[in-house]
């Protein structure tokens, strides 16, 4: 036996969880129209011209024991398959290495504080 009062709360309390489905719609919209941070300045390194864009402004994450940050690199000059290996420095197939760096945008410092 259970006492129950006919209140708004009692009538709707078990329907509140359905509101979470609104979030599902919101996340669907977000995934259909993603927004990314601004791209950094374009720089030339050797035969390559690169424009990096971070995927987000979050701090690096741990991946396979290494702190990792994802970037999209747009190559406006030079072919990717001409790169033997690269860590924001580039080595071509002749063993020549060039180093490149970007000044971190202020937004990075703000998000990490």
């Amino acid at each position: 036996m259970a006492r129950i009062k006919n209140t708004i709360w009692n009538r709707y309390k078990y329907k509140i969880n359905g509101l979470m489905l609104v979030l599902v719609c919101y996340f669907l919209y977000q995934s259909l129209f993603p927004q990314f941070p601004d791209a950094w300045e374009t720089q030339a390194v050797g035969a390559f011209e690169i424009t990096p864009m971070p995927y987000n402004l979050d701090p690096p994450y741990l991946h396979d024991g290494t702190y990792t940050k994802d970037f999209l690199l747009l190559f406006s000059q030079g072919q990717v398959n001409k790169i033997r290996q690269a860590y924001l420095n580039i080595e071509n197939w002749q063993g020549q290495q060039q180093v490149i760096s970007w000044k971190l945008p202020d937004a990075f410092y703000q998000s990490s504080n």
Partner: protein
Amino acid sequence: MCGKLISIKTADKFGHQMAKRSNRFWFKLHGWFSLPVWIIFCFVCLTGTISVISHELTWLTNPDARASNPQDLAEKPMSELVEIVQQAHPTANITTVMSFESYLVNAVIFNDSDMPFAIAYVNQYTGQIQAINLGMTFTNFMRSLHGWLLFPWHVNYSVGYYIVCFMAIVMLGALISGLVIYKKFWRSFIQPKLRINQGKKTLLADLHRLAGVWSMWFLMLMSITGLWYLTQAILWHNHIDLEPHAPLIEASQVPTSANDAPIRPYTLSNALQVAEQKFPGFKSTYIMLPEHQRDTYKVYGQGDHIFYDQYAYGVTVNPWSGTIESERSPAAMTTLQTLSHIADPLHYGTIGGLWTKVIWFIFGIFLTGMSITGFLMWGSRTVKAARTDLDDPLAMHNSQLVEQEGN
């Protein structure tokens, strides 16, 4: 003698009251497990049920996804499908190839200067590119909706994934408490009762009980695999990898060249041969091409183990030396790795092909329906009864108590 009779009667009454109280407790517990989240639970069950047959729905609704084979041709190896796509899109960077059921095309995933993400639907028998998909597939959408409610992933965790995994606890709790309340539940197997002419309440109760008892095995299976997914989510969240990452080739192994980029001496075709030699009966289902010069060919597939998923066997092959850098097979798996490879076929119903998918789909509908009938039962027994009490002052005077199940 008389005193003894009285004491037996008192004990009997006391025992009856205790049983009633205990039953009431289990009944409340059953409601607490299910009612506060019943809409999300229903949504997860419904999307899961559709996901089970998502490949078949794709086949039915999208002719480009069908791998027709009227001439009964042999299946082409994935390396040949890669060559076909590369010829059709010379500037494409092909990253992944996936195969599914024999009646669905293979997916060759690539990016190109004008396509940041594309999936070529390649008929594995004829070699024809039947379509280029630039967006999300129905299967991926349904599985993302079911798996994490489209909540974003924060690298190694998603709140949505946790919410869905939490449903395993809800399901297990509802199953156990339901069986405790429903005395002699096994009668539903030998004397199934569905009274359709005795009112809505009786019909709902019969449907709920009948579906619950017949779905017991399914509820148990979904709960256990769901609890495994929860464990897996916690492990991911804590950076505990179930399987080691594919090793990176030593920089010294990558040759230098006086001219252009050297061509990798070992091709994808060689990597597939290595996998086939290593595991007799191997069928490739998922391959990844090297992302960069120090990366490997990753070739995964299925073997003769019915309980393991389609990625249980695999090798990573060095494209410069042709050697196996790492390998995976059921025989060499740890307990956690084994669990991760046997959970999906049991959860998705792919274990026995199309027939088990149909069974999983039917019981998925039962589960979805049970969350609805459960809520409707609560509604008809409590809220509506309370409304009647307010409408009828005499009834309110007589009793403010609303009778519930089992009392």
